[in-house]
C-alpha cells in the first residue's frame, strides 16, 4: 500500500489538508500503541509498526515538497541528485540576490517592513514555481515528470530561504 492508498486518496498532488488531518487522527485511533497497552507483545509490536508508518505517510503527504517528491517517485521518475551541479545559471543568480536581500534585513531602517517585503518576494517567486510544478504534473509524461523534478529542486532552495528568514527573525527579536 502506498501512502496515498493508506489514506484512502487518489495519487494526486492536490489534496485537502483538513480532511488529511481528520483521516490521520481516525487511523491513529485505530492503530496507535496506546490502544494495545494491555494486549500481547505481538499486537503491540505490530501497532508500533503501523503507527510509525502512518506517521511517516502523514508527514510526507502534509508537506508539499515531500508530497511532490513522493508522487514523482511513484511515477518512477528519477529525481535529480542533491549533489549534482545545477545547470540553470539565471536561477542561481536570482538565488544569490535573494540571499543578499536576506543578509541586508538587519541593516534596514524599518526591520518589520524589510522582513515582510522579503517574505512577500519569496512568496511570489515560489508560488510561480508551484504553479509550474502542478502544470507539469498534469501532463503525465516522462519528460514533464522529469522537468517537474527540476522545479521541485528549485523549490527546495526556497524552502531553505524561508528557514534562513525565520532564523534571521529569531535572532533579531532575541536581542
Amino acid at each position: 500500500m502506498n501512502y496515498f492508498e493508506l489514506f484512502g486518496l487518489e495519487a494526486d498532488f492536490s489534496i485537502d489538508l483538513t480532511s488529511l488531518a481528520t483521516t490521520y487522527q481516525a487511523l491513529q485511533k485505530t492503530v496507535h500503541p496506546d490502544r494495545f497497552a494491555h494486549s500481547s507483545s505481538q499486537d503491540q509490536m505490530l501497532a508500533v509498526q503501523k503507527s510509525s508508518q502512518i506517521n511517516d505517510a502523514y508527514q510526507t503527504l502534509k508537506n508539499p515538497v515531500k508530497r511532490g517528491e513522493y508522487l514523482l517517485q511513484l511515477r518512477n521518475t528519477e529525481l535529480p541528485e542533491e549533489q549534482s551541479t545545477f545547470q540553470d545559471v539565471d536561477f542561481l543568480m536570482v538565488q544569490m540576490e535573494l540571499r543578499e536581500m536576506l543578509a541586508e534585513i538587519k541593516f534596514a531602517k524599518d526591520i518589520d517592513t524589510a522582513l515582510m517585503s522579503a517574505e512577500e518576494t519569496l512568496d511570489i517567486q515560489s508560488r510561480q514555481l508551484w504553479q509550474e510544478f502542478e502544470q507539469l504534473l498534469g501532463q503525465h509524461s516522462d519528460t514533464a515528470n522529469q522537468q517537474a523534478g527540476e522545479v521541485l529542486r528549485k523549490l527546495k532552495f526556497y524552502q531553505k530561504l524561508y528557514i534562513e528568514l525565520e532564523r534571521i527573525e529569531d535572532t533579531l527579536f532575541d536581542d
Partner: protein
Amino acid sequence: MALLQIAEPGQSTVPHQHRLAAGIDLGTTNSLVASVQSGLPKTLTDAEGRDILPSIVSYQQDKILVGDSAKALAIEDPQNTIVSAKRLLGRSLADIKQKYPNLPYTFSGNEDHPSIATVQGDINPVQVSSEVLSTLVERAKQALGGDLEGVVITVPAYFDDAQRQSTKDAATLAGVKVLRLLNEPTAAAVAYGLDSAQEGVIAVYDLGGGTFDISILRLNKGVFEVLSTGGDSALGGDDFDNAIVDYLVSEFELQRPLSHQLERQLLEQACRAKELLSSQDSVEVVINHQQQTLTLELSKATLNELIMPLVSKTLRACRRALKDAGVSTSDVHEVVMVGGSTRVPLVREQVGDYFKRQPLTSIDPDKVVAIGAAIQADVLAGNKPDSEMLLLDVTPLSLGLETMGGLVEKIIPRNSTIPVAKAQEFTTFKDGQTAMAVHVLQGERELVEDCRSLARFELRGIPAMAAGAAHIRVTFKVDADGLLSVSAMEKSTGVEASIEVKPSFGLEEGDIIKMLKESVTHAKGDIQARMLKEQQVEAARVVEAVQAAVQQDGNALLTDDELAAIENALAQLTKISQTSDIAQIEQAIKDVDTITASFAERRMDSSIKTALAGHSVDEV
C-alpha cells in the same frame, strides 16, 4: 482499538473487570500518585493524609527512609540522604559536577555510571528513583486494594533518551509495569482537556523549580496532538530565588564568598519573600549575620523587576514553540499553567498578556500532572472502552549519527510524532573497509561535541569492497515512550547489527538483574518466581487477546484450518502456562505469536479499512 475493548459487556469472553492503574508524577522535589476511582481522578494519600511525597531517600544503617522522614535527615545527614535524584538520572559524573558543583555526596563508580557512596554501599540515582516509585506504588496498592495492572510515569518533555531509559529502569527495579512514559505538559493538558471537552490549540506553560517546558497541542475529538515542544532545562523558580539572593547580597553590602550557612539563610528568606509577595505588596526580609540583624523591605515591584528578564526568556521559548507548531498566539484557545513557579503573579500576568487570554489555573499546579497521568493510565489499562482519547506525542530533540568530520547527520528531526521509524543509507569511505562505527547522538547542534552522545556500536563483517560500494542502511526507531533503538544492515550481504540504545550513561547491561537480586525490596521474593509470574501474566494476556480476536474476526478472516491451528496453539499455551517452566512458557507464547502473526496483520489492515470508511470499530 484494543481487542478486549470491542466486545459488548454481554458478549465479552471475560467479565468486565476494573483494572487497577495509577499515574505517577515522579518530580525533582516532590512526587505524587493519582488514580481514577469511580470515574474521578484524584491524588492518593498516605496514612497521615498527605498526598505530596518529597522525592528524598535516606539510606541509614538498618533501613531506607523515603519522603518526609528522609527529608528530616537532609540537613543532619546529607551524605546519606539523596535529594533531587531526578537531576542526576542518566547523567555522567562530569555532567553532574559541572551543573551541581556543591552536592554533599561522595561519588563512586565510573565516569559514565556514577553512584553515591552511602552507609548502605554504592547507590545509583536509578535506585533512588525506584525507592520513590516503590513507595508510591505501595501507597496505590493500599488505597486501591490490589496489584496494579501498570502505571503511567510522567517525565519532562525535554528529557533525553538516557533520562527516559533511566526512568523506565527505575520502574523495572521497583517491580511495576510501565504502561507509558508520558510527557508532563501533555499530562497537564489531559487533566484540563477532559474536564472541559475543549477543542482547538492549547499551550501548556510548565515552570517548575529547575526547568521550563512549553508545549503546543491541538485537541480534536479526544485526540491530543502535540505540535511542538520547547523550553529551557536550566530555568526555573530556583533562578527567581537566586536573583533575589543576589539582590539581597548587594543591598546588604555583603562580600562573597559567604559561609554556606549564610547562603542557606539568604536563600530561605528569598524563597519565603517570593511566596509571600504572591499575596501581598511588600515583605520584610530579616537576616541574622555576625550578631547583627539586617532588615530590608522588599516590594512586589522590585521582585518583578528582578525576575522580569527570566520571565521574558520563557516567553521567547513560547514564541519559538508556536513557530515550530505553525500557529500564532491568536490560534491558542487555552493556556494551561503547570508547576509551582506559575503561582508567581508576574508569571501569570506576562503569560496572560502574551497569549492574550487568562491562563487556566483551576487545578492545583502541583497536582495537575499526576491527575493527567491517572486519566491516561485508566485508559491504557483498558477501563474506558469507549474512550476517544488518544495522545500523539513528539520527540523533543533531534536524533542523528556522527558522519565524517565530526558532523551530525539528523535522522529524526525534533518534534516528529512518535512512534517513528526512519532509515538512511551510508557507505564505506575506504577500500576494503569491513567494519563501520555507528555513533548515535541527540541534540540540535551540528557538531558531535555539542550533542549528547547516546550510544556507540559497530557493524562488523562487511565484505571487503571498494570505497563507496557498500550500502549500509541505518534504521532509527522511537517507540511511544520516546525510547530509541537503532539497527544497521549492509544491504547486499544482509550483515546486521542492532542495539537497544542502552545509553552510555545510567545503568549498564545486566545491572538491573544484579540490583534486583541485591535489592532489599525483593530479597523476600525470589527473582525466579517473579520472572515466572511475568511469563504467566503475559501468557494469560496472549490467550485472552487471541480469543477475543478470534471471536470478533475469526469468521471473516480465518480459514477452518487456520482456526484449528490457532485453537490448538492456544490450548497448548494454556496448559504449559500452568507449569513452572519459564523457558517452555516463553516458547509456547512465541509459537502462538508465529501462528497468529498473519491473522494479527489482517485484523490490523481490516481495522484500518474500517477507519477509512468513516466508521470507527467502536461504532460498528
